């Protein structure tokens, strides 16, 4: 019977991956997908009303990404700001594919769930400074 590196490793101990690592990789994968402007952030109101949560648990929601990491599986909740003109279903499919590819290939974790919420839209004409900076390249 042949054994893969994962199987050999599990007999000798376990590998724990921190939530921060998964969050970081999700963010990198998301930024590579066309149609996504940014990851949604918590507003001041939410930060104040949710301040008791910061004293308990490991909430990653300050960046719009919440991950639940187990020994073999991971579940991801993601809130994003999309560019105006995108189609939600296509964007979500691309985003899921990017996240799953990255997480599964780099971390060896099975992505159980990727919940995506489009929490806002980015309209370029309402943000002239951002549009201007793009032209400078």
């Amino acid at each position, binding site marked *: 019977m042949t054994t893969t590196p994962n199987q050999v490793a599990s007999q000798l101990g376990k590998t724990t991956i921190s939530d921060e690592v998964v969050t970081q990789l999700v963010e990198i994968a998301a930024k590579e997908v066309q149609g996504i402007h940014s990851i949604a952030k918590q507003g001041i109101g939410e930060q104040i009303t949710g301040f008791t949560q910061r004293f308990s648990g490991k909430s990653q929601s300050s960046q719009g990404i919440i991950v639940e990491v187990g020994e073999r599986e991971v579940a991801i909740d993601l809130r994003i700001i999309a560019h105006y003109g995108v189609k939600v279903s296509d964007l979500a499919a691309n985003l899921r594919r990017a996240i799953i590819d990255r997480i599964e290939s*780099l971390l060896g974790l099975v992505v159980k769930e990727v919940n995506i919420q489009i929490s806002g839209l980015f309209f370029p004409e309402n943000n002239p400074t951002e549009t201007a900076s793009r032209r400078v390249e």
Partner: protein
Amino acid sequence: MAKLLDLIDERVIAEKVRTSVTSIPGIEVPVDQDADLSTVGPGWRVWGIGVHRVAGSLNIEIELIVTLNKKSSIPSISARVRRKVRTSIQSLTSEQIRWINLQILDVRLKD
């Protein structure tokens, strides 16, 4: 008597583990307050490595900061680290290694 002599000091084991792990390209062990884990003794501390003796065998915990490129992955790196640690400890002592647990604290991506 022979059995007692075989019990190497935990500090030596921790230092050996640290040296062998950091010799792998792309692997770092956190130092000082960046590490959550350490092996402690009178007047010394080895950061990022935990060495415990339980029922005559060794349990080792290691915190890692890993640099990944397109060809590498956490499972393959974990296996490599475990092989390296096992080999280096077995050259030092005949004690059995029960488990080697790894904690990936941070990942850096390299193209």
